[in-house]
């Protein structure tokens, strides 16, 4: 580190938000100085209960970042410790201090590593700069949560969200959910990876992918970072295709690495690229979605649909989801926890489908036992692909707890 230059860049800095409408966040204003130690001013709606705890944590975070002399003013709106640590660290870094040092919150136990073909019916988007949505997200039971660093985060807050998301990956219990992070487009996304990969997200979503090379680069970077941090559990990749070119290259993108677990589509950007209006029945994106499903199948990965953005329209969501499943998608995104249940219902096989599949599987097993080459159910002959599909359906239904 060029100490001369670092010293020059030291300045006052702020991070986070406060105000009447802000919940579970805090605002930190930092004024570095040459002597005088740490001076804390704290206003908090929970100061009676956690004032001492916040002061103590502030000192500890500053110390771990090597900051000895500073005036720090905190407006706290009931933020949890992992948020407090993230906001202070952001302010410290914005002030030009604490370079290359992290102040990591206590780590909760990780859930089991994610399987490449696990159930991915629903993935709940959480804006990476809104900590209030993080803490209970897992309770609502989506198959995955996505901590988003891309479109839901203002360009000026990328650094702040990156640290907050990193802390959330360490400190927040997301239950049985797969933990996904949507990084920014490269090259900004590389900084995101450096921050989050050491905390073992299960899946990295790469936005606006048009060429397989973009995925390969991220894949390589993840590999390096995993080695450096000693991580040996899988971190899967889910490219998001959001343009006409991306759709045309979908198979190459999906098959570029064995770490790709699924491929998905972003319809807002895709329809904008086409210059068409996005409708609730998705006529305009039928080709793109069908092509994506085909590419995914050919590459042996899951095809996952976009989000349904009208969070108040549950009937529309249901229609979309049913159509989506019929096209071959295995899941879709959600913007609100209320969408999760409808999505799980629409992506589940119906009792009649399960029943039929169970009968086919039973008939197949019976034929196997009897050494028969031909499987039949009633008067109908059953072809091998039909048996295969029935077995897959029963397996999926089992994962969903339906069969």
């Amino acid at each position, binding site marked *: 580190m060029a100490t001369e230059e670092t010293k020059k860049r030291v300045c006052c800095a702020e991070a986070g938000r406060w105000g009447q409408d802000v919940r579970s966040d805090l605002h930190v204003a930092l004024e570095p100085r040459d002597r005088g130690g740490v001076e804390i001013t704290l206003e908090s709606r929970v100061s*009676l209960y*956690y004032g001492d*705890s916040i002061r103590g944590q502030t000192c500890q975070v500053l110390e771990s970042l090597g900051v000895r002399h500073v005036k720090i003013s905190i407006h706290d709106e*009931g933020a949890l410790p992992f948020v407090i640590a993230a906001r202070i660290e952001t302010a410290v870094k914005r002030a030009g201090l604490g370079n290359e040092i992290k102040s990591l919150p206590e780590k909760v136990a990780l859930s089991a590593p994610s399987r490449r073909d696990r159930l991915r019916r629903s993935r709940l988007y959480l804006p990476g700069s809104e900590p209030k949505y993080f803490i209970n997200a897992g309770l609502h039971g989506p198959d995955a949560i996505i901590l988003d660093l891309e479109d839901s985060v203002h360009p000026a807050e990328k650094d702040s969200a990156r640290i907050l998301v990193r802390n959330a990956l360490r400190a927040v219990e997301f239950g049985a959910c797969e933990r996904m992070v949507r990084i920014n487009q490269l090259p900004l996304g590389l900084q995101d990876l450096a921050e989050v990969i050491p905390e073992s997200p299960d899946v990295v979503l790469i936005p606006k992918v048009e060429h397989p090379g973009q995925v390969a680069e991220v894949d390589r970077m993840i590999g390096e970072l995993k080695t450096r941090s000693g991580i040996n559990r899988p971190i899967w990749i889910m490219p998001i295709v959001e343009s006409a070119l991306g759709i045309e290259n979908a198979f190459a993108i999906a098959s570029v690495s064995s770490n790709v677990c699924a491929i998905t589509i972003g319809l807002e950007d895709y329809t904008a690229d086409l210059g068409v209006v996005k409708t609730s029945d998705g006529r305009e994106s039928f080709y793109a979605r069908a092509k994506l499903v085909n590419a995914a199948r050919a590459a042996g990965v899951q095809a996952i649909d976009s989000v349904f953005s009208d969070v108040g329209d549950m009937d529309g969501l249901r229609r979309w989801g049913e159509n989506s499943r019929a096209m071959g998608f295995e899941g879709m995104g959600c913007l609100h926890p209320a969408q999760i249940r409808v999505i799980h219902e629409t992506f589940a096989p119906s009792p009649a489908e399960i029943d039929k599949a169970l009968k086919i599987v039973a008939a197949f097993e019976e034929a196997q036992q009897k050494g028969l080459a031909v499987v039949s159910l009633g008067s109908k002959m059953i072809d091998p692909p039909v048996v295969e599909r029935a077995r897959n359906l029963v397996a999926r239904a089992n994962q969903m707890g339906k069969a």
Partner: protein
Amino acid sequence: MTDRIELVQNAAGRMVPALANGKPQIPYLGVGQYEPHGRKAAPPVRSSKDYPENGDKRVADLEAALRNCGLRDGMVISNHHHLRDGDSVALMALQAAARIGVKDLMWFPSASFPSQKGAIELMEAGTIHHIEGSMNGPLGEYATQGKMRGMGVLRSHGGRWQAIQDGEVHIDVAVIAAPTADAFGNADGSHGKSACGSLGFALADSIYADRVIVVTDHLVAFPCIPWQIQGNHVDFVVEVPSIGDPAKIVSGTTQITRSPDRLRIAEFVACFLRDAGIMRDGFSFQAGAGGIALAFVDYLRRLMKESGVKARFVRGGSTKYLVELLQEGLTDYILDGQTFDLDGVKSIAGDPRHVATSPFTSYNYHGKGNFASMVDAVVLGATEVDVNFNANVVTHSDGRLLHGIGGWQNCLAAKCTILAVPSFRDRIPVIVDEVTTLTGPGELIDVVATERGIAINPRRQDLIDALKGSNLPIRPIQDIKAEVERICGGKPARPKLGDRPVAVVKWVDGTVLDAVWQIG
């Protein structure tokens, strides 16, 4: 109030004042332990010869009416709160009393609202000595800071009836805001531009007060039908241009919560009633008008339809969600204590199956039974609940007055009492080691439902058994508490309360359950 107030320990282990506003208090003895005695209070005998034969009891204005009632220093003046934050009549009456020049009144509203903060000036000026009734917002702040000359007395709706009926509080003058009335004093709440639905909270005042004034902005020719308040109890009728702001009396529409966490709690509670076997043909329930309670009704309605189950009655606070149950034939009756929205008001005015009730029928503990204990399940809120299921509803966890007790304490008599609460608010855990202000004894609270799981009171082995096969996340209360403390970064520090009581919290039988202490 500079004298030291003698404190005694009650059966709940709480230190409470032995005296409140000069009256000796009985410390809480335990649920069902206090034996009342004596006869009910009664107003003086009156004669028709002193009232106009033509039935026209109108006087020019409130000031004249109060003079005619003989309002004097130190008297008790009462109001009801059916007009909620839109009420103009209470302050109108108190200000008229100030103009007459009387001092040291005890104001005895069935509840107070933030828009009545003008009462603070009247306390400062000496017109009001103290308030016995719920205080929140600015009035709560004033009382908690120890600025009120007398001691606040917080009672449940049923407890207020009990106190009036038992003669513990004698009302000298009751001023009753009436959305519709005739000149004889018959009054109704469900019609008129300021319609508020039921007038049940004013019923005790009309029966037991020495003098009764009805104030209306919608005078109709005799007879005012229906009459929720009987003119035979009424001394004077005053016509005014407006008794309140309709927009604040009832909400246009009551809104279900949109918070996914709160919706989750509401759904848990509805499923709990189903899985516990409480939701069955002919059952009954009560839920308030808070966001979680409304969502609960909506979920329960779906479950009732799914299972083809019908309720015999539901208890309001009515809202459009209860009204929909009635209209869809999912309940035979709404027994309504207060009416929260326009749909509720319309329904109570037009549907004979939507019936106005009073604290006497619903809640009064010193009666020959009441409806509350017949309700199968009630869903309530709370600011804090402890590991023994004791709950606080009147103060913030820092000890400042927050809510009135309302019907909350009375509802604890239901066969299954469920507190539906988030597990923490703003980093402050709701489940604590000990509640700041004890408002409800844990032995009456059966279930605490949070977004992280549902805790059943170990005293209710029957419910624990009934829920054995359920998919609901049933967890020990200590378990939920520990998880929340882990998330919140440790146990919260206990706020320091003052050592001077500023209010007492009465139990439903008139004994003192706890005290509220001066802060700041």
